[in-house]
């Protein structure tokens, strides 16, 4: 416990803040602490958490990616057509196609960053626009509703009827989120590759000197982020039951903010799966709470933005001296 507080101070503080917010909402509203509300919160946040655990790997390796959400939209479209080619497919094929397409798009970023020595923010601003522009141009912004049944059917994992008669359900994206989180945790905590990613993000020159393969690090980081984005895209279609080319626009900033809130650092070497989950959940719970408290939905983004700005300021005050790693 003492170690947790010292080695993961951000996660620890986040946990406390989360507990306080939950406590306040429990007292202030009678709907917050209900099974139905909590289950819905989890269902709605699952996709962002899948995105987040992908992105955190890039941040750990010292990069930044803002193209992943748009990449997920591209993956959704291409997957629809590839599945049609295979005559409908199934979940296994869906995961394989979406995952590998995502990896492919991530590797484009990694290649440009590593080979041409372009900073990652510039590369991903460019690929963000290239992906989005081409997608909108080729699809003319068309929505797709005619999707395979297996893809759009809600799969309920656990359900429970509450006393009020409403159903509390956990759906497939939650299970995928759990698997994605465990896989990412395993990669970054338990494998040698994961530790090399931390080392590379922490001190790129030191990593190069001990013989870490720098190109492989970029490829793994952006490939992982791409794969998670592809899978998140697959899940998002399952959740909303349609494919809309600009549905995920802007999601990258929400996810990035949540991951940074969770303790990841621009400049690399820091970040955890727990932090991602806590960051995404905190923002989701605040929005949920504002909603339950009857505050105008137009105010959500403003309040969340202010909250993030304050959080970044506060979390940097104690680390101000270590935070000048501006270069990728």
């Amino acid at each position, binding site marked *: 416990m003492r170690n947790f507080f010292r080695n993961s101070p951000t996660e620890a503080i986040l946990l406390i803040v989360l507990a306080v917010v939950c406590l306040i909402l429990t007292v202030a509203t009678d709907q917050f602490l209900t099974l139905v509300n909590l289950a819905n919160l989890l269902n709605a946040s699952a996709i962002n958490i899948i995105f987040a655990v992908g992105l955190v790997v890039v941040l750990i390796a010292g990069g930044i990616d803002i193209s992943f959400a748009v990449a997920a939209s591209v993956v959704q479209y291409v997957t629809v057509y590839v599945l049609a080619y295979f005559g409908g497919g199934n979940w296994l094929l869906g995961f394989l196609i979406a995952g590998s397409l995502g990896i492919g798009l991530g590797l484009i970023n990694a290649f440009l960053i590593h080979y041409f020595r372009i900073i990652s923010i510039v590369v991903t601003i460019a690929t963000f626009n290239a992906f989005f522009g081409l997608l909108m141009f080729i699809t003319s912004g068309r929505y797709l509703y005619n999707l395979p049944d297996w893809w759009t059917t809600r799969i309920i994992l656990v359900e429970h009827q509450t006393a009020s008669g409403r159903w509390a359900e956990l759906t497939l994206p939650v299970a995928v989120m759990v698997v994605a989180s465990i896989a990412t945790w395993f990669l970054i905590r338990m494998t040698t590759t994961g530790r090399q990613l931390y080392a590379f993000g922490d001190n790129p020159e030191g990593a190069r000197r*001990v013989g870490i393969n720098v190109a492989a690090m970029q490829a793994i980081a952006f490939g992982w982020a791409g794969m998670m984005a592809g899978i998140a895209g697959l899940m998002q279609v399952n959740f909303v039951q349609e494919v809309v080319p600009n549905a995920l626009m802007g999601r990258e900033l929400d996810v990035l903010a949540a991951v940074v809130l969770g303790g990841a650092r621009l400049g690399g070497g820091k970040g955890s799966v727990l932090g991602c989950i806590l960051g995404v959940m905190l923002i989701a719970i605040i929005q949920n709470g504002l909603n339950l408290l009857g505050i105008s939905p137009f105010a959500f983004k403003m309040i969340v933005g202010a909250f993030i700005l304050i959080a970044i300021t506060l979390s940097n005050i104690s680390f101000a001296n270590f935070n000048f790693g501006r270069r990728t």
Partner: protein
Amino acid sequence: MTASPPAIHFEHITKTFGGVTALDDVSLTVLPGEVHCLAGENGCGKSTIIKIITGVYQPDAGAEMEIFGHKLSAITPTIARKLGIDVIWQDLALFPQMSVAENIAFEAVLGNVPRVVRHSKMRDKASEVLQRLGVNLDLEAPLHTLSVAERQIVAVGRALVGEAKLVFMDEPTASLTKSETDKLLNIVDKLSADGVAVVFVSHRLAEVLKISSRVTVLRDGKLVGVYGTEGMTQSRLTELMTGHTFDSVVAAQDRNDAPTVLEVKNLSRRGEFKNIDLTIRAGEIVGVTGLIGAGRTELGHALFGMSRPDSGEITINGAPVRFRSNRDAIACGVAYVSEDRLTLGLVQPQSIADNIVLPVLDKILDKLGLFSAAKKEKTVHAWINDLAVKIGHPDDPITTLSGGNQQRIVLAKWLATKPKLLILDSPTVGVDVGARAGIFEIVRKLASEGLAILMITDEIPEAYYNSDRVIHMSGGEFTGEYDPRTSTIHQIEEAVFA
């Protein structure tokens, strides 16, 4: 017993960087189990040759490289590591966000094939190494929470973890205390007894002579020779390293009649220096020497307003001063030439002219408060001529200059502020031996014009021959003062290296 091949046998090593020759036909041979010393001044090519042997740099064509009997045409960091070569870098190359255990046992996570990390095994390995070193550190603490000395120990530990058969130690004792250093030297002895060769790169001559059996001396990228340490003296070694037979004349003069420029009374800052009393008169050069970590640079920083002393008084030209930042210090006539020219002394990629005018922007404005190109040019020209700096064009990047000329630019930029007190922190670091005399010529001329100068240096002869007084600093305190006219250089050396 068959003669085992040498641990490393490198010949005809040449390395040029964009026209600058860093190494010129150097060779280095180290025997298994030998404690070898690589000696030479800063900038002589020691770091470059280590980087070549460990595969970070590739030598120019014509090099012959052999490691433990394997003839190699090219070395990569992975090959070097596989053949049992490890380095403790001067800048440590550690990972600040990772734990102590992981930094020490980092070896365990290397390799291109992903494997599962066994954290408990890494911890065991790390604690075993720390035990061998006889040090106690919290294995779970993130590295950035450790002191510099502790990080150094971690770096040493990391090299010991691998099955290294040859370890380079690049200034490993620089920031260790005496007892930590002694422990480290014991470890080196033990490694040597186990058959592990150690190549020691160190400034501390006493250490070099005490521990190593042979010493390879480099000067200006060239091999001076390989010598046994039996019968070698410190002054002979200094002579080989610098190429100077120090028959220099003591330049000290009595300045007691000159007005006092700087007066420091009882200045202390926790963990850095304490009870410092210092007076420097106009035209006086005071040398402060001592080991790295003695608090010399920290004192310089405090006098330049970069840190605030906890207690004590600073008086300049009779007026008490209290600096809130270095801007206040500069306004009071203090200038500071940093030991770290690369990252603190100059804004490296920018132009020569811009670097000179940076601290005197106020002086090159026209009536409207905008920069005047003519005034800027005039200032730049005046200083370049005055200090005889060899440059191409004032708009060239500062990186096009040699170390000695860069240092002249640093002096120029500070002299442009018309200082009363000039603090020189290791003014000859990275300056070629030939160019050093030129720097001191300027320094002495400045003093004769009435500037008070505080010169911080590792190089005892530099302090001895160029200062009016030499102060020995140790453990944050002034522990002795020597008048070069009445003391010998050996007295100071004995005090410092004792």
